[in-house]
């Protein structure tokens, strides 16, 4: 009888599966990716490698010596122990990440604009005390520009009423406002000494949200030719909330990671981070296999560093606030081994 191996589900719960069951899940995850994203399946050797990783009973998994990648960060620290600068210094000196990110608890560019001088002061102090790169991060978060939180009509309310033209016009207006806010905050943080800017969860509100991110990056790159500019996606697929928005002649609705990366590179990013959503009802082996299959064309075609989002709820890591290290290490190693990523 096959031995049952401890593993995890996408919600973080522990599960015990045989090696055969793990292999079946890996194959099914690959098939799901092929069907959904219209990408090529993984080769047999790649599937074998995934099974090798997930069928191990070891507590921790890691890449080979010499194959280590960059660990870039979005908002480091919990902001609950000491100051935000303490968080940054802790992550530099104890956790030893490769970059850190200063962030505001209200993690969106629109609210940050209101407390910008305070963010600048903290960034300046941080830069005096840190050696490693410290960027500033927030989300484009286009939804914040809709009524009642913002000035433009709420397209989520207009669309179900069939008021398509008005919904589209509202999204275009929100894009313009968001780009101005992102550029203003980014320029201010550069003046404060930030090593880069991060547009986190780009595309969260659909194609208009992704367009705002791309347009902001394009302006910032023209202004700062050698600055760190990072885009991290919200999900695997750009939702067509508008449906007809384009960037450089490419329609944004329906884009998968490879096409997302190409446009982000054209806009001028330093780092691009695809995100593949986790299915909490499937095993981490299934989820990681699916994620790797979908991202592989992106990694193969990459013209800029690709730091795949491998964290809570993305990249195969369980959707749980206390992510178990056995699952995180396996998903991370699988992604790095098979995709030749530039970072996580």
């Amino acid at each position, binding site marked *: 009888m096959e031995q049952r191996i401890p593993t995890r589900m996408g919600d973080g719960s522990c599960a015990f599966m045989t090696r055969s069951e793990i292999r079946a899940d890996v194959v099914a995850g690959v098939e799901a990716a092929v069907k959904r994203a219209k990408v090529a399946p993984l080769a047999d050797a790649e599937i074998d490698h995934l099974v090798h990783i997930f069928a191990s009973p070891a507590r921790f998994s890691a890449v080979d*010596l*010499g194959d*280590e*990648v*960059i*660990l*870039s960060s979005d908002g480091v620290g919990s902001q609950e122990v000491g100051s935000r600068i303490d968080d940054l210094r802790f992550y*530099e*000196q104890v*956790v*030893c*990440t*490769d*970059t850190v990110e200063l962030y505001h608890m209200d993690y969106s560019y629109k609210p940050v604009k209101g407390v910008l001088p305070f963010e600048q002061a903290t960034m*300046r102090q941080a*830069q*005096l*005390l*840190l*050696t*490693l*790169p410290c*960027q500033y991060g927030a989300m484009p978060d286009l939804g914040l520009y809709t009524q009642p939180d913002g000035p433009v009509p709420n397209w989520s309310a207009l669309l179900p009423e069939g008021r398509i033209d008005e919904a589209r016009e509202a999204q275009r207006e929100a894009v313009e406002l968001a780009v101005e806010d992102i550029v203003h905050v980014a320029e201010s943080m*550069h*003046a404060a*000494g*930030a*090593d*880069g800017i991060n547009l986190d969860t780009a595309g969260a509100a659909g194609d208009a949200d992704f367009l705002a991110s791309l347009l902001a990056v394009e302006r910032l790159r023209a202004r700062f030719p*050698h*600055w*760190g500019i*990072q885009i991290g996606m919200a999900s695997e697929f750009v939702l067509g909330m508008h449906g007809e928005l384009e960037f450089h002649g490419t329609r944004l609705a329906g884009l998968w990671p490879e096409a997302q990366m190409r446009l982000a590179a054209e806009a001028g990013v*330093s*780092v691009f981070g695809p995100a593949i959503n986790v299915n909490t009802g499937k095993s981490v082996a299934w989820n990681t296999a699916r994620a790797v299959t979908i991202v592989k064309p992106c990694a193969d075609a*990459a013209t*800029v*560093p690709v730091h795949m989002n491998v964290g809570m709820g993305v990249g195969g890591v369980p959707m749980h606030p206390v992510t178990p290290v056995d699952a995180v290490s396996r998903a991370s190693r699988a992604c790095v081994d098979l995709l*030749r*990523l*530039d*970072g996580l």
Partner: protein
Amino acid sequence: MGGVRTAGDLVARVQMTKRLRLPEAKRYVAERLGCDPFELSDPVKMLDIRRDLGLGGLSHQDVTTVEDAVALGAKFGIAEVLDVPIPSVEQFARLVGDRLRRD
């Protein structure tokens, strides 16, 4: 890669400023530091290299003395050795330069 414990922060800077993929970024940094790319993730090797070149690193008393560059001081060395722009270094240099010119 291990951040300031190794050369991870240095490779990250090169990725951010020069948009190099990881193998190229590692080769670039290794060449600038005078070591092999494999050694970039070796904390034992990198402790000596970083100290010799004034690139900062872990700052506790077991591995650092008051003679060693840390934080902003280390970033001056990093900017020079890697030939990368660092905004905080440029800003500080501008402030100090303004004062020196004034005095």
